[in-house]
Every structure is written in structure tokens, then in C-alpha cells.
């Protein structure tokens, strides 16, 4: 579905990506893990065109994504849940969800999707008319995911959905991620929290300072000694 080949990105004189290869197969959950500053976000940002790579290619169903503008990505079915949630704090919860469906014209279907989001996240329904800025961190993350889903993505990319959230909420979010996946959405997940993400991922990549250093299925990486040492810590539990 999505194929990244030899992607190189530099900005401010720093080489953020030193030629990475990554593939997301349709219908899978793919995780990209790694420490802060490894280049994970840069990878996502280059996919949606917010960062311009100087070499390499990104193709989506065989189509070169570098020619497509960021604002047209959702029309292609590619939606990003940005790092730090980035909900529109000055808009209501409902408006945030509606703006996720901004390019769509099928009002009836939008309404249906809205109901679906509200069943996924009942807490958002209670807060429909509240300004998104007044929500808690967990609720904002749910809203950010809901907003992305309103665009009916085929490929949903998530940048650190667990960042700054309490463990219970993280669990909830990851349950939802699996639920969304069951609905037929392909997911590319970026996480520092290797433990949770490897458990749900079919395919996973480990990134270090702009390079992919390891790859395999989620299970393989979960039991890999290097990964254990570097990302899971000594006492793995849960």
C-alpha cells in the first residue's frame, strides 16, 4: 500500500533520515519504534508532504506522493493524527470532528460516521458542545483519533498516540486502535512506547538516528534481545 524507498531528509544542516526503507501492507498494523529524535516523526511528516525529502521515494498504491499537496492527502485516504494531538482548542468537539470530514460532501454518511465515532468514544458525545481546549489529555487524544476517522482514512498514521497519557488511557486508546483496524483501516503507528505498540503490530521497524536498524513481526521484536535492552527495559511486564 505504502512504500518508502531510500528516503533521505535533512533540515537545518542535520540529516534526519539517512535512507530508510519501509513498507506498509494493506490491512496491517505497522509500528515504527525508536527513541526521541530517531526520525520517526520526520518519516510521517515526509509521507504527508510537510517535510520535503531530498532523495528517495514514497509511493502509495504505486503513485508518487511527492507530487501531492498536504491538503489533498486526506482525499487519497491518508490521514495523520499528529503528535501532541493538535486538536483545535477554539472549536467545539463536534466542530473538530466535522473538520475531519472537511473535504467530504456526503452529509448523510458524515452523520453516520459521527454516530460511529460517538459509539467508539462515548465520552466525546457527552462533550459535543464543549470547546476542545477544555478536554483532558486523554479525551483530546480520542478526539484527535475521532477527527482523523471522520475523513474515512484507508491509511491512518498515528504519531505517538500514547504520549503523556496515563497507562489506563493508553490501554483504552490501543484497544480502539485494534478496533479501528478490524474495520479495515490500515494503520502506521509511531511510538516510543515499544511495549504496547509491538503487542498490537503485525509488522514493526526499529529506528535509530535516522536509520532502520531492525525489522520483523511485532512478536519477533518483542522477544528480540536488543530491543528488550534498548526499549523495553529489564523488567518487562504486562
Amino acid at each position, binding site marked *: 500500500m505504502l512504500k518508502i524507498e531510500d528516503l533521505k531528509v535533512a533540515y537545518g544542516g542535520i540529516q534526519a533520515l539517512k535512507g530508510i526503507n519501509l513498507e506498509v501492507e494493506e490491512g496491517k498494523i505497522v509500528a515504527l519504534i525508536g527513541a526521541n529524535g530517531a526520525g520517526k516523526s520526520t518519516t510521517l511528516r515526509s509521507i504527508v508532504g510537510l517535510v520535503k525529502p531530498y532523495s528517495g521515494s514514497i509511493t502509495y498504491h504505486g503513485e508518487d506522493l511527492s507530487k501531492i499537496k*498536504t491538503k489533498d*492527502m486526506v482525499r487519497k485516504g491518508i490521514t495523520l493524527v*499528529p503528535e501532541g494531538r*493538535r486538536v483545535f482548542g*477554539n472549536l467545539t468537539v463536534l466542530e473538530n470532528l*466535522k*473538520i475531519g470530514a472537511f473535504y467530504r460532501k456526503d452529509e448523510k454518511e458524515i452523520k453516520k460516521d459521527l454516530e460511529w465515532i460517538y459509539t467508539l468514544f462515548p465520552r466525546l458525545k457527552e462533550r459535543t458542545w464543549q470547546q476542545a481546549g477544555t478536554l483532558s489529555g486523554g479525551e483530546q487524544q480520542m478526539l484527535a483519533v475521532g477527527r482523523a476517522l471522520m*475523513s474515512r482514512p484507508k491509511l491512518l498514521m498515528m504519531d505517538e498516540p500514547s504520549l503523556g497519557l496515563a497507562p489506563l488511557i493508553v490501554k483504552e486508546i490501543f484497544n480502539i486502535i485494534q478496533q479501528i483496524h478490524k474495520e479495515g483501516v490500515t494503520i502506521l503507528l509511531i511510538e516510543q512506547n515499544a511495549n504496547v505498540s509491538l503487542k498490537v503490530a503485525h509488522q514493526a521497524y526499529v529506528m535509530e538516528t535516522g536509520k532502520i536498524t531492525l525489522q520483523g513481526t511485532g512478536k519477533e521484536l518483542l522477544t528480540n534481545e536488543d530491543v528488550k535492552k534498548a526499549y523495553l527495559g529489564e523488567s518487562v511486564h504486562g
Partner: protein
Amino acid sequence: MSFELFLQYLTNGISLGSLYALIAIGYTMVYGILKLINFAHGEIFMMSLYFGFYGVSVFSMPWYISFIVAIGMTALLGMMVERAAYKPLRESPRITIMVSAIGVSFFLQNLAIVLFGGRPKAFPNVRLLTEVMQIGSVSFQRLTMIIPIVTVVLLFALLYLVNNTKTGMAMRAVSKDHETARLMGVDVNRTITITFGIGSILAAIGGIMWGAKFPQIAPFMGVMPGLKCFIAAVVGGIGNITGAIIGGFILGIGEIMLIAFLPNLTGYRDAFAFILLIAILLFRPTGIMGEKISEKV
């Protein structure tokens, strides 16, 4: 001071305040969406008067057609200024765009001198607007009544647009976060262009009513109203539309009342706005309606 005289001053203050409010909205909307103080806005206002003048006096169009054409041309000018002078600088530091705005301001002033001449011109007199009417013992031009009514109608239309339409939602989203809005499929550049268009239309409507009220136009006439309306936007809380309206009325009514109650300070009427600005910046820098700016980590 007699009550009638007070009423006379008050109606004057309200209509001047309405005009300030209309122009102040342009500052506040552009600031909201680009975090830019569009110093060229006063010149956009000035140009609208010349467009109106040329339509009636040179091309001898009927005043209503000429004014509509002038409003359209002003909107076009506002959007062109954005495309030419601000859009290429979207990724630049804010100070760069501000310098560009000041440049546009000087450019338009001088362009007006070249195109229209430096000597003041008389704005066409529209009898329908300027006729004097009398309610009780208070007499005023019809305009004094029309201006606040037009303003209020426009304000409600604008608030509806911003709060209840898809375009308005896009504008609010863009004002918060360009990048995320883009990710949601919002055409950020188009939204910004629309914002400049709306701001310029309001400035043009304000400008034409201004011309009817103070029928003398000159290339530098945009400077003082521009500055005052910028102050009105700051007083109200820049970025907030309702705030700009309140700020406009405070400024207009305050200025006229200063003249009414302290006639020997008439020469300082322009100073009133700046004193108000200093006071607001000292005691309530976010303005009346402004939100507290809190950096969330």
C-alpha cells in the same frame, strides 16, 4: 450641556465608532489567521474611497453601482496584496511579514499620489445619505443613522459566517493551527485569501460611508483611521471579532465625548486613541475580550 446636545454628540460618536469597528475587524481577522498586523489595511480603506470617487465623478456611474464596484475592487486589492506581499513570506519570521506590510502601506500611499494626485478631492455627495433629518430637537444627517444600522447588520452576518458556516470553521481552524488544518484537507491559502477579502470588503463599506460623512479624500487619509482602528482592535483584544467591534465603539464614542465635554482639548482628539492604547497595554495587554495566552507544553 443640554440633553439634546449630548444626544447629538452621542449619535455622532456611535456612527464614528461604527466606522472604526468596521475597519478594526479587518485588522483583527488578519491577525487572528496570520498573526500579522496588516499595516496596509488603512491604505486599503483609503483606496476604497478613491475607487468610489472615480466611479461617480470620472466614469459617471450611478452612485450605488459605483459603490458596489468600489467594494469589489477593494476586496480584489486586499486579496492581491496578500498574494503578492504576504503569501511568499508564509514561512518567514513574523517580523519579516510585518516589514512587508509596512512596505505595502507606503507603496499604496505613493501609488495613490501618482495615480490620483496629491491634492485632496471631494467625495461625491449622495443626497439620499447626507440629507439632514430631525428627530425632536436633535438634527443629524441621515447617514448618522444609516451607518450604525449597516454596521450592525454586517456584524451579525460576519459572526454568522465565522461561527456557523464551513468556511468560518475553516477560518477558525486555520487561525489555530495551519499545519493541522492542512492535514484535515483545508485549503489554508484559500482560507487566508477569503479572510483578506472579507476584511477588505468591510473596510470598503466603512470607507464609503466615511467618505459620505467626511467628504474629503487624500492619499494619506488612511493613516490616522488605520492607526486608530488598529488601536481599537488591540483595545478589544486582537484576534477577537467582537472585541474589535467593542474597541471601535469605545474609541469612536470616547473621542467625540472628549470633544463634547472638554472642548479646549479638541486639538488632542487623536491623542485620545494613543493614550487609550498605552493604558490598555499597561493594565490589560490582552485587551477587553482577549484570551490569556498560555503556552501549553
